[in-house]
């Protein structure tokens, strides 16, 4: 197992971190909570909100000179001592972005690495005209769940409305789509476009979200922002295949996750807790205090008798009011077949996962009793009008009003404040700071991140009230981030393979459902992770024979222009000479795709392949041998070096 050692040079610790240490030691000595809080705010304000103080730059520059290398100006105060300028830029592009696009390395060299990083950290600076034009095609992104349910109703519901059996309706739909496909084919429409235009209803919603996610990762200038959005969507995983979530995940990604990606952790936590997508996915929308629920039922029944139906419509959402999934053949869908009048009671699913996965971590120090009482705090957090216009709704009537104790803290306010206060406690817990910091370090630095780094990030997390940007800044301004051990140490996930290959090839996409399908085939179907853990972030999960084979086939398919809905212009990418000179093609591909970072062995192997007649083809009427650039590009994108970042 790899254990990255922590460089202990004098500049290893930034002045900001030093400030943190001071605060902590004072807290330890005096143990005065109030002083601690004041100092915390002061420290956070002084050290995290602004760029590093000028002194920091001088210090690290001096240390670099001391180590015998001259640090490029563009490094600014970044603590880079073990990587060359090219390596550092490539590392930044691989770790804080989805890999280099042609010309990126040079652009960052011109602009200065620190400046580029500071742009990435301030997501408002992104100006994405190229991307925005593409996203305009995906109309569902801007639609509310209500609009989605209206426009893409569940097939079973439509069938019912039209007085048909679901099977009959489905068959009719398929025939209709088949006919449309034929027509479009005759009109000469691109196959990818046809596939996209003739998806059965609700599938279109997910397809657009997948493609938007892919396009954003490929084209956005706000690369770090996109990485963080995907990180949080995975951390707060919701599976689109679970019943109604098909109609809810778009709103979840667009309006719950993305606006809070770089903000405060607690905002994100509370927003996900209230989101219909999460409420449905982890069942909290059904969780109720059994006694309160009974009382409510009894009272409603009495009123109904008294007022003869005047209060109808006041019943809380019942399970099963959600549209049934359908029309998504081949998908594993958890059907929610409800009985007519279910009794309601406590459901501890979300109460557990919010502690285990979203905040404290599995060793966060909670017990089964804490899980139950956490769930009790969150009773009444449910969904209003789930069939029509799914919105968060706190239903006082099914809330557990008794006093609850979670991890030693009492929550007896009654009402929604119980849940909010309990979530607040979780967000502020040191275990959460550590858990989130570990996950971030594992995502951005190494499968086994150095403990000192995680601790430093956790300190920032605590002092800044979970300011995500501040934690990222601490990570990036840590020498561990730029260590030799971290360089090229991470294996790309399937999504990262797909997107980085697209970036390397300067790929042009129209709607390409196949591109999204390939991400799934390599093992990471987007928004379809069934367990609440989300996808793994370590190599041991992604490196295996079947997955590797799919990666190689993906590289070949994409580079040889066999992926409908995508195209790459290798002739202009690899230069004029490459068309007839295989070696020139290879060396340009290595430079463009891998920044020239290739082992001698791989290079030699590739050179040997170049003489193969499949790569150098002579056409009948033309004695000049033409290079199969797609094949060369495919081989490089399938090389071991491209699997790492």
């Amino acid at each position, binding site marked *: 197992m790899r254990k990255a050692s922590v460089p202990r040079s004098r500049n290893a610790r930034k002045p900001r971190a030093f400030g943190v240490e001071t605060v902590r030691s004072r807290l330890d000595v005096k143990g005065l909570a109030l002083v601690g809080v004041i100092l915390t705010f002061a420290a956070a304000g002084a050290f995290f909100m602004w760029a590093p103080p000028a002194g920091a730059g001088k210090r690290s520059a001096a240390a670099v000179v001391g180590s015998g290398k001259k640090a490029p100006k563009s490094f600014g105060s970044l603590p880079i001592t073990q990587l060359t300028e090219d390596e550092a830029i490539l590392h930044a592009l691989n770790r804080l972005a989805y890999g280099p696009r042609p010309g990126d390395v040079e652009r960052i060299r011109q602009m200065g690495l620190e400046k580029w990083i500071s742009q990435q950290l301030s997501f408002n600076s992104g100006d994405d005209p190229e991307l925005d034009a593409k996203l305009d095609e995906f109309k569902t992104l801007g639609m509310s769940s209500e609009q989605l349910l209206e426009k893409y109703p569940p097939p079973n519901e439509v069938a019912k409305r039209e007085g048909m059996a679901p099977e009959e309706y489905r068959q009719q739909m398929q025939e209709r789509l088949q006919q449309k496909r034929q027509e479009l084919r005759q009109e000469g429409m691109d196959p990818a476009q046809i596939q996209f235009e003739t998806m059965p209803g609700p599938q279109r919603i997910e397809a657009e979200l997948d493609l938007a996610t892919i396009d954003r990762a490929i084209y956005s200038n706000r690369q770090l922002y996109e990485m963080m959005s995907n990180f949080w969507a995975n951390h707060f995983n919701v599976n689109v295949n679970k019943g109604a979530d098909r109609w809810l995940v778009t709103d979840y990604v667009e309006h719950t996750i993305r606006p809070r990606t770089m903000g405060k952790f607690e905002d994100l936590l509370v927003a996900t807790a209230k989101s219909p997508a999460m409420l449905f996915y982890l069942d909290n929308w059904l969780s109720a205090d059994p006694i309160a629920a009974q009382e409510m039922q009894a009272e409603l029944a009495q009123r109904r008798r008294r007022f003869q139906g005047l209060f109808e419509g006041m019943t809380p959402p019942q399970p099963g009011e959600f549209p049934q999934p359908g029309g998504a053949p081949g998908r594993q869908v958890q059907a929610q077949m409800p009985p007519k009048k279910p009794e309601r009671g406590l459901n*501890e699913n979300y109460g557990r996962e919010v502690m285990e996965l979203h905040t404290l971590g599995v060793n966060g120090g909670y017990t089964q009793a804490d899980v139950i009482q956490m769930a009790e705090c969150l009773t009444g957090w449910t969904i209003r009008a789930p069939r029509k216009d799914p919105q968060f709704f706190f239903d006082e009537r099914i809330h557990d009003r008794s006093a609850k104790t979670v991890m030693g803290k009492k929550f007896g306010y009654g009402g929604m404040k119980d849940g909010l206060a309990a979530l607040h406690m979780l967000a502020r817990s040191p275990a959460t700071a550590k858990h989130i910091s570990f996950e971030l370090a594992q995502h951005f630095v190494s499968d086994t991140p150095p403990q000192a780094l995680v601790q430093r990030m956790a300190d920032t997390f605590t002092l800044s009230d979970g300011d995500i940007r501040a934690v990222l800044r601490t990570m990036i301004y840590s020498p561990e981030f730029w260590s030799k051990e971290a360089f090229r140490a991470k294996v790309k996930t399937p999504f990262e393979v797909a997107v980085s290959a697209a970036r390397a090839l300067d790929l042009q996409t129209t709607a390409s459902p196949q591109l999204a399908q390939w991400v799934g085939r390599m093992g990471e179907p987007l928004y379809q992770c069934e367990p609440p853990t989300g996808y793994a972030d370590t190599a041991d999960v992604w490196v295996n024979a079947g997955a590797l084979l799919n990666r190689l086939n993906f590289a070949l398919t994409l580079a040889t222009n066999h992926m409908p809905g995508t195209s790459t212009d290798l002739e202009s990418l690899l230069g004029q000479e490459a068309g007839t000179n295989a070696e020139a093609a290879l060396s340009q591909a290595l430079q463009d795709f891998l920044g020239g970072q290739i082992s001698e062995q791989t290079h030699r192997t590739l050179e040997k392949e170049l003489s193969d007649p499949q790569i150098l083809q002579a056409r009948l009427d033309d004695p000049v041998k033409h290079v199969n650039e797609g094949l060369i590009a495919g081989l490089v994108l399938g090389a071991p070096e491209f699997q790492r970042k």
Partner: protein
Amino acid sequence: MKITRRVFLKNGGVAMIGLSAMPSFLQRAIADTSAPNKKKLVVLFQRGAMDGLNVVVPFAEPNYYRLRPTIAIPQPTSGSQEAALDLDGFFGLHPSLQPFEQLFHSGQLAIVEAVGSPDPTRSHFDAQDFMESGTPGARSTDDGWLNRSLQGLAEEKTSAFRAVAFGPYLPLTLRGRASAIAIPDLKQFRLFGNPQVTEGGFEAMYAQTVDQALHGVGQETFEAVDSLKKLDPDNYQPENGAEYPKSRFGKSLQEIAELLKADLGMEVAFLDSSGWDNHVNEGGVQGQLANLLKDLSQGIVAFHQDLGDRMEDIVFVSMSEFGRTAHENGNRGTDHGHANCMFVMGGAVKGGKVYTQWPGMSDGQLYQDRDLAVTTDFRSVLGEIVTKHLGNSNLGSVFPGFDNDPRKFLNILKT
């Protein structure tokens, strides 16, 4: 030059010469490598925590009906059309498991009840990791019990298919020093393009690379791709009228059967199924759980049928990370619990019996006042299979820190 199976196949040996014209030493070489161990093991992991109490139903336990007022499976004698299928007067099968009845009564299927991990965790991923690593409570174990059970055997690394997971990932159960591969889709297990260039190029790159992790996996990949060339998965015909369900589970089972019949040297196969985490509307005789059980029993019975006589050498075993609460929750589902049940099937099995020390379900008997207690450690079930079936008696390294005394086996397998 040493003639290995791989080199031989690469040169087109088998297909070109045919077995009869082959020199005898080569015939031997092939025979040796294709069947290093006649015994095969198929392992199923049911992810999400199956509700064992509604799968193998303790219908003679009155508390069962008290704790599950709306989702309990009726007693066999209830007169209901859809009731538990009586096994032994105390336990009954969920009606969706009807295809299992015949397997059970013919002695091919055994059930272990109140089995599980002693670790108290109710976290899916911790409990899965513990069961897969075979070391409950120890988070640092980074290889799986099934991989370790192969490490001890003499015939290590004879076939690229010795250990195969059917799915997109190599599960922890199979991770470790012994080589193992994952096959997401047998039909797609080949390289695109002209094999001379693409296979040649990629294979050489991965053979040469200094990247240790990728070097190993590359080698496994290309060996497997090579051997699979003689298979024709598009035209596979199940035998004996077997009909696999058209689910992912059914497809994986069929692929396992196909590889077993092809004699490519597969000794252990792993597959998993999901959807068992039924917190809401789990259902009783019908519903979500019932549908999953239909898939399970139809798949297993098809597999048993398809393999026919070969089942004599095959053992199938299932497990799930933990059971579910003895009582149903407020949404006609169940939450995370403790003990569960396991199925063991095959020719070597002393079936027709529910192996259990029934812990009871009254208030004082439930684990932490809510779950079925574990009275059999899952490791003693697996340990018996590893020893008697796979022939690895070095259980100390397969299940370190566990009392692996063979005298404590349940004797589910014939000796």
